[in-house]
């Protein structure tokens, strides 16, 4: 049993799981309780299906993008534009769908998925091509496209909020047989994206090549790896993930605007890094990225549940991010020092 758990999570991810569970226990103990309107039972303010799925839903929009981001970071790059890709995909999809208000629901949904993901892929591809061809650091390229993509969303919507057809909301808010106030779809999408991302990184040749390019781009080149295609692909994946997240988020909330997901890129990068991705490249995991996103949302939730002063939310999250990364680095430095010394 323990062996199975070990093979599922690395030591570091296990640490994250433990911290998340601890945070959950603390919140359960101190949250207090209320009477549920639907059932009439007394339920814990934290440990109840509605709150838990709500947390999972909040997490999913970051986490889906964090899975893509972790691949960019593994390749030793960075993508600041994912929040803007989210907004651009969301509003362009919404604008196009407005022309199809009378189309059958299934076609609306399919068109929405294709548009949102397609726009994400195209935006990511442009990022990737520029990173490879222009020889400018991805930080600068994606800083530029962050504003360009956001600007496109702004100009096309004239800063107005755009409604999406109900068919999309029906899909994103499907109960799937659960109680009628529980919406598990975003969570399931997040889990699917995480599992697919983890399998891709760990089991496929392409995933291995991303690690190699991020670990040592020169050695990867000397090993005959298609560097440019690999680098481009991670930005495409990050764009695709932003597109998926945009579809789920927009459908869930029923509308989109050019201001959607602004500032998300930093949460997403933080999630990937808290999840063990190294900005030096060559290190990171999809499961870790999802857990990192979950931890950040949990901390936010804890501030509310425990009735702490909400004004301190940013300070607490900021400190938590730095502390978790410092702890992680400290442990790897210790391990490396042992290795290096052992060599002498």
């Amino acid at each position, binding site marked *: 049993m323990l062996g199975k758990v070990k093979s599922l999570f690395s030591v570091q991810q296990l640490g994250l799981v433990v911290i998340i569970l601890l945070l959950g226990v603390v919140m359960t103990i101190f949250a207090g309780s209320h009477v549920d309107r639907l059932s009439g039972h007394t339920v814990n303010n934290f440990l109840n299906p509605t709150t838990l799925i709500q947390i999972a839903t909040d997490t999913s929009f970051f986490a889906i993008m964090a899975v893509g981001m972790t691949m960019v970071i593994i390749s030793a790059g960075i993508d600041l534009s994912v929040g803007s890709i989210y907004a651009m995909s969301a509003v362009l999809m919404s604008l196009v769908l407005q022309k199809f208000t009378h189309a059958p629901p299934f076609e609306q949904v399919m068109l929405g998925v294709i548009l949102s993901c397609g726009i994400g892929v195209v935006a990511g591809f442009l990022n990737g091509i520029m990173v490879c061809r222009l020889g400018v650091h991805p930080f600068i390229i994606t800083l530029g496209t962050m504003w360009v993509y956001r600007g496109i969303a702004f100009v096309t919507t004239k800063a107005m909020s755009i409604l999406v057809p109900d068919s999309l909301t029906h899909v994103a808010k499907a109960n799937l047989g659960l109680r009628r106030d529980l919406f598990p779809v975003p969570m399931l999408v997040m889990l699917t994206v995480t599992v697919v991302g983890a399998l891709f990184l760990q089991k*496929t*040749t392409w995933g291995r*090549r991303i690690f190699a390019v991020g670990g040592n781009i020169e050695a990867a080149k*000397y090993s005959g*790896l298609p560097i440019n295609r690999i680098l481009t692909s991670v930005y495409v994946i990050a764009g695709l993930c932003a597109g998926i997240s945009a579809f789920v988020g927009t459908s869930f909330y029923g509308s989109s605007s050019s201001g959607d997901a602004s500032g998300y890129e930093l949460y997403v990068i933080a999630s990937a890094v808290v999840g063990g991705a190294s900005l030096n490249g060559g290190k990171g995991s999809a499961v870790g990225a999802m857990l990192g996103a979950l931890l950040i949302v949990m901390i936010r939730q804890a501030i509310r549940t425990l009735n702490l002063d909400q004004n301190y939310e940013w300070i607490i999250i900021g400190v938590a991010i730095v502390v978790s990364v410092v702890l992680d680095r400290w442990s790897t430095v210790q391990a490396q020092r*042992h290795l*290096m010394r*052992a060599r*002498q």
Partner: protein
Amino acid sequence: MHPILAVSGLSKRFPGVQALSGVRLEIQAGSCHALMGENGAGKSTLGKILAGIYQPDEGNIQFEGHAVQFHGPQDAVSAGISMVHQELLFAENLTVAENLCLGDLPRKGMWLDRKEMVRRAEGWLSSIGSSIDPTQTLGELPISKQQLVQIAGGIGRGAKVLIFDEPTSSLSQAEAQKLLELIRELKAKGVTCIYVSHRLEEIFAICDRVTVLRDGQVVDTVDTNGLSRDSLVRMMIGRELAASMEAHEEIPVGEELLKVENLSSPGKFEPVSFSVHAGEIVGLAGLVGAGRTEIVEALFGLDSHVSGKVTVKGKPVALRGPIQAMHEGFGLIPEDRKHHGLVLSMTAKENVSLPVLDLVSSLGVIEPGKERSLAQKFFDQMRVKAPSIDASSAGLSGGNQQKLVLAKWLAADTDILLVDEPTRGVDVGAKAEIHGLIRDLAAQGKAVLLVSSDLPELLSLATRLIVMREGHLVGELPANPGEESVMRLMAGVK
């Protein structure tokens, strides 16, 4: 003569390994004392303890008759012991003078006194007979000059003992000769030198005594005078060395696999033409900067300005990039294993399978069993010393990392192997194994193009030699032409 430095009962343990145990050593003032041993024998650790970089767990160090304890390199420097590091520890963006004065910047009031800084640096540099301009940016100097700056810094701070850790590992032959000359001069001025190296020739050239370490213990300390190479090697590895320098079976020469006509790259090398047949090991001789590495990199498609005609097995090929070069049957074992050879953040297994992932996967999904057995096969064939194929490649010693790079290209199974400095920084035992392997590859019918700055290595391995000088092909020699004739061609002496 009295010992300037005496060490007894010195032990140092790192997690998982006893680096040194009960080391006893006396170093005579004004002598040049060599520390030798295979990789992992503990010679570098010993040097670093003497320089205050590591602190011993047990044991005494006596310097000039007094017991000393160094808590850090600064303590050792102020006592008079400086180290010239294997990997240079400098701020490459600063000037020579700034680097030299970094620990103790001269000031005028609250401002930096640049004039004084330059004056001091000039004095130090001239004391070792160097005329490097102190206002030059350090990173612009070649490695050999950066090393001189390091030596000048040590001498300038009044070092009585200088510890050299593999100082010639990144120098050309001529530069190495100059450095050895400088060490002789320093010795004549009364500076005691401790010389950590793999290179037997250098030890015999400049050292008076040699202490051989094996597995963290002192095997013996002997005078170099009257010592034979064989007995020194035997002391180091504790067994007889498979005779790597002796005569070998002739490898039959097969068909022409590689033909190069008028290959040139502006600023790197002028038109060269040569060919390599199956079963041949063609040595590319030349001093550093002669264009040898540039030629093999161009053949591997890493030079976009190259022109000329390259024919593989009678078929002309274009040199577009490593992917295409591998497709045509080229494999490159690069000079710089840490930067070009390995991805140090990955395991040994992952490094070996990297160029051949397609062979161990189906539809893009890696088959773990296939990957393991492929990696294990070449891992064993190369006799890489590591706990397992899942060990981190960063944790392996230089020799084992080099074996891993070779394993990687064995796995790739290419017909033409471009081998660049295969044994730089590798210990004697691993070196002999690598030599044996290169011969085996030729015997299997591969064409090998070998670049090496180690002339004895080149002469013992190569079945034919091509000599380069300053980007020009200056001559072709048969096997075993004798060291002198090659040197003459390389250096351009008639």
